[in-house]
């Protein structure tokens, strides 16, 4: 069976509803509230049920949700891990750049 469907790219600066976030991450609104209190995500809106979140934060919410579900860590632990993982990724990118630069200085061998 084959089907063709349209894709939607979440643009930079796009907001998605908390309902959609919860569905995509398999979590309750309460968890999003906790992650927001911890500063991991930055929702807008008056009450949690009407919140909207930046689409680019979906990936970190899902990572936090997986860590909470799979490793039994609480919200603070998951938020801390997500931030450290992001920092590690950034350092790895910079390290790769530096290594490349060092290889350039050493010259081809």
């Amino acid at each position, binding site marked *: 069976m*084959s089907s063709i469907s349209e894709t939607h790219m979440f643009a930079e600066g796009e907001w998605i509803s908390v309902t959609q976030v919860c569905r995509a991450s398999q979590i309750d609104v309460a968890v999003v509230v906790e992650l927001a209190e911890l500063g991991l995500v930055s929702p807008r809106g008056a009450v949690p049920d009407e919140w909207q979140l930046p689409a680019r934060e*979906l990936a970190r919410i899902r990572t936090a949700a997986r860590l909470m579900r799979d490793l039994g860590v609480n919200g603070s632990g998951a938020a801390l891990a997500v931030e450290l993982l992001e920092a590690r990724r950034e350092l790895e990118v910079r390290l790769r750049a530096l290594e490349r630069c060092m290889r350039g200085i050493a010259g081809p061998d």
Partner: protein
Amino acid sequence: MEYRDYYKTLGVERSASADEIKKVYRRLARKYHPDVSKEANAEEKFKEVQEAYEVLKDPEKRAAYDQLGPGTQSGQDFRPPPDWASGFEFRGRPRRRGSPEADAQFSDFFSSLFGERGGFAEAAAAAHSGRDHHARVDIDLEEAYRGGTRMLELRRPQQTRDGAVELATHQVKVTIPAGIADGQQLRLAGQGEPGHGGEPGDLYLEIHIRPHELYQLDGRDVTVTLPIAPWEAALGASLTVPTLGGPVQMRIPEQSRAGQKLRLRGRGLPGDPPGDEYLQLSIALPPADSPKARAFYEQMRRELPFDPRANLGS
């Protein structure tokens, strides 16, 4: 289908207590969790551990699994016995719905025993919407630059007319917009799990751009390390340099230094605004591997008043 020894997967005795199993699972899950682990095959190992724990943490499933016989070896060919799961009293509680990623990826061995067709399935599930599915798509930097379309082959469980569940393959055409960033999400509405009396779920794709051997990606900007000769750095030069859109000519200014970054505006990934390309200069030394080259270095030593350690203060 191969028999799986769940006790061996967790590295515990068959007599291990529930508490011990939980402790071991926590340790292994932490070690192999794909989000944090640097171990080789972490994802595969994590799934095996999760599958084993899914069975051994549940007293009913564990008891049923234990009945299969401790004599069977891991990897041995296996068919569930015809009276599988009879004699167990199920409490009729709803089956826990695990994470879709995990559920879908448990082994055939697991599904034949505890999946929809196994004895542990619920008689009639209440009407519900389909779950969202997630997949990761790796693309090359060139594809992120140009954009393009991709046919993805997805397998998802589907109910046949006689009520059995089989994995159906379906193809989805995905449009990757030019200038997509690393980690960006695409949503395909209605392409997740089919609903049972409810809406189907959505399919989310997380785009990952593979590391490139030439370009280092940072947001929409790319950096290339550009080796130049000492005289090009000292005197300036006009060079052909690579960009994602093809080679361009550029000018290296006089008195350039190693590590210095030169910017080619708008030559990174497309977008609004588009990214830039940075050329990070690295000065490559010609080898002193011939009498002529050595003589040339000797001459520089004599005639160039140069102290590379002038700033060390000694």
